[in-house]
């Protein structure tokens, strides 16, 4: 389930909650061996997690505050201390990155969860070819983001990709014949931004007017959303299929007996029961989306005018290309906070429930 999610944090958390449970149980047992054994077994993995996750997070925080801005490792703290963060939040590229990752997350989650639910509901009717289609929809999930990125880069190349299809189908000939321009979008090469809200937001926050970045939906990001959704809609679908299987048939029948239409059975009974599935899917896809790197690196890179740049690529460029380790570390801490905003409330809820 976490194959593509690169489970840095999640494994850690699974282990932690597991240990919480085992500590609570042995209190009643009197045999000392059984009391000591579980913690003893857990100590190595706990130690590894503390070192390789939490200590390293602290080291990264330290690096982000340090003077390590070349290949010479320099642990001395900077004065002023938060200069790397100040510099980063002054960079137009970083503004574009934050805009992109938020826009991408919203679009990607809506598309893949929306279509995932739709496909699951269609398959729920057990029509002909149920197994075949379920597998077909799930297949893209088996690919790596790099493969997806390269394939979709070719598809959205404005000279050789999908635009040739519009020509071939005669759509463009028809458009020209009725006197309008042919449909040849630049896709990933288009630096434009749709629905820019700088002006309207400028009435409320005058500082927005000074931004060199347009707040809106970068056009070049749309093909990336298509590619990412293509890959992960199947995953959302399988989550919903699993969720639908847990909805007891008795409930549906009861609703029907009470005179509900088939549409009402879904909107009033099934969908409300699927809410936990939606939350889990959104969390899993959300943290994939906030940390995304490989798909965009393979498909568009930073894009025209940073239209598809994301914090993950920023960290890579600043750390290894510019050798500004402190800046790269600062950006990764901000990424960690973004992911934490999504995941921590979810974990908190789960912990309280347990």
């Amino acid at each position, binding site marked *: 389930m976490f194959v593509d999610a*690169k489970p*840095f944090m999640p494994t850690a958390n699974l282990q932690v909650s597991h240990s919480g449970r085992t500590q609570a149980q042995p209190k009643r047992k009197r045999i000392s061996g059984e009391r000591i054994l579980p913690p003893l077994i857990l100590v190595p993995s706990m130690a590894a997690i503390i070192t*390789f996750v939490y200590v*390293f*997070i602290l*080291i*990264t925080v330290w*690096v982000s505050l340090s003077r390590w*801005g*070349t*290949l*010479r*490792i320099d642990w001395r703290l900077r004065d002023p201390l938060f200069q790397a963060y100040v*510099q980063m939040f002054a*960079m*137009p*590229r970083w503004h574009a990155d934050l805009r992109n990752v938020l826009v991408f997350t919203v679009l990607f989650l809506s598309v893949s969860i929306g279509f995932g639910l739709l496909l699951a509901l269609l398959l729920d009717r057990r029509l002909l070819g149920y197994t075949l289609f379920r597998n077909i929809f799930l297949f893209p999930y088996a690919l790596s983001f790099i493969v997806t990125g390269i394939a979709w*880069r070719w598809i*959205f*190349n*404005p*000279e050789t990709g999908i635009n040739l299809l519009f020509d071939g189908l005669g759509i463009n000939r028809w458009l020209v014949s009725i006197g309008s321009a042919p449909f040849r979008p*630049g896709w*990933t*090469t288009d*630096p434009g931004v749709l629905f820019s809200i700088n002006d309207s937001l400028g009435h409320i926050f005058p500082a927005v007017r000074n931004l*060199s970045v347009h707040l809106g939906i970068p056009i070049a990001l749309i093909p990336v959303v298509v590619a990412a959704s293509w890959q992960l809609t199947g995953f959302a679908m399988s989550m919903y299929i699993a969720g639908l299987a847990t909805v007891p048939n008795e409930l549906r029948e009861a609703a029907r007996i009470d005179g509900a239409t088939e549409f009402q059975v879904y909107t009033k009974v099934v969908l409300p029961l699927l809410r936990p599935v939606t939350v889990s899917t959104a969390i899993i896809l959300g943290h994939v989306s906030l*940390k995304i*790197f*490989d798909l965009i*690196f393979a498909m*568009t*890179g*930073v*894009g*025209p*005018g*940073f239209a598809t740049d994301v914090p*993950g690529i920023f*960290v*890579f*460029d*600043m*750390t*290894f*290309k*510019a*050798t*500004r*380790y402190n800046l*790269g*570390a600062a950006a*990764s801490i901000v*990424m*960690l906070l973004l992911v934490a905003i999504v995941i921590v409330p979810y974990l908190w809820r789960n912990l309280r429930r347990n």
Partner: protein
Amino acid sequence: MHLKMRFCSPVVAFASFFALVQAPLSSQAAGEKKLEVFSWWTSGGEAAALDALFTVYKKQYPGVEIINATVAGGGGSAARPVLQTRLAGGNPPDTWQSHPGWELLGQYVEPGYCEAITELYQSDGWDKAFPKALVDLMTKDGKTYGVLAGVHRGNDLWFNKQLLEKNGITVGDTMSFDQFFAACDKLKAAGIPALGVGDSGIWASAQLFENTLLGVVGGQGWIDLFGGKMKWDDPKVKEAMKYFAKMQDYLNPDHSALSWDQAIGALIEGKVAFSSMGDWADGEFIKANKKENVDFGWVSHPGTDGSFIIVADGFTLAKGAPHKDATIAWLKSIGSKEAQEAFNPLKGSIPARTDVDKSKFDGYHQWSMKSFATNTLLPSCVHGEAAPAAFQQALNDAVTAFIVDKNVDNFANALVQAAKESESNK
């Protein structure tokens, strides 16, 4: 694995961990005859050129086993993280590929990752064979830290000769900006994008700007600019930015979806007429069986005649190299006439030595060698030689933004700011 790392500190700690594990192994290995060469030369011509260096080395110093530690990825994007990790973790390869100038001296020598090889320049007579401007790019406080295998020329303007002839354009021995834009207008009127760029990795556009900048400020201006005597918001720099903005009107519309070699491919097919690119482009023409001065031609980028932007490849000696003797032999071999003559025709560069047999090279490279011997030699910024990596990245970022917003003041201010920041990071 390294691409997926979200935090840089784990990388360093992992490296130190592996360094600890490997330390006893490498000290055992010191007795054996081995040599680890780290590079990112994996594509066709590059790999063949590296292999030629190995062949010469094996002939000159038989009995040494070469560990070819290449990491694939254009321009070393994947290799550099690996190299940086190994250096920081105290587990260096014996020798690695580096550009001269800032990349060598600022990045590797300053933190103490390299050992000087000054004595080789006397013992092997290199001080007479290599141009002084080139050796200076590898020298700090009187000590020299590397040897160059070959030199590329960065400021070339390539063109599809037949396409130009068809449109009534002739190119002389030099070209001015006026001539260039006149030709572009003619081509635009004929519906042809004049200038081919493939900047999916933004550096190709940064290089077009670099060449244009040199065309305006000239050789002395270049030295003043990177020496801090001229500011990045100087009127001359802004003039270059305006030229660069004007060039955007003549670009192939899909430039941000192409890589540099695909842009040269478009030139070969006659989809675009010009392309400003270093002479590694020459290999693409040869691969496509195109004849020089018949199918394609070249001239110095507008305004840059008399200057030679160096994009050179050299090798280092690691401090604490596990196989020091074999590495010194490797560097001696690279500096030898035999190796330079074997390596460069395959790599598409010219020898860093000026005393080699010119007859082994094609027409373009003989032209380049002549230019190398007579022109002002200048370090490239886009290829990490003229300025720190932080500035190089900032230039790439500023170019990315400028291509879209074409705001000269923002561009200049971003570079002024970057120069200040990279100064404080030194």
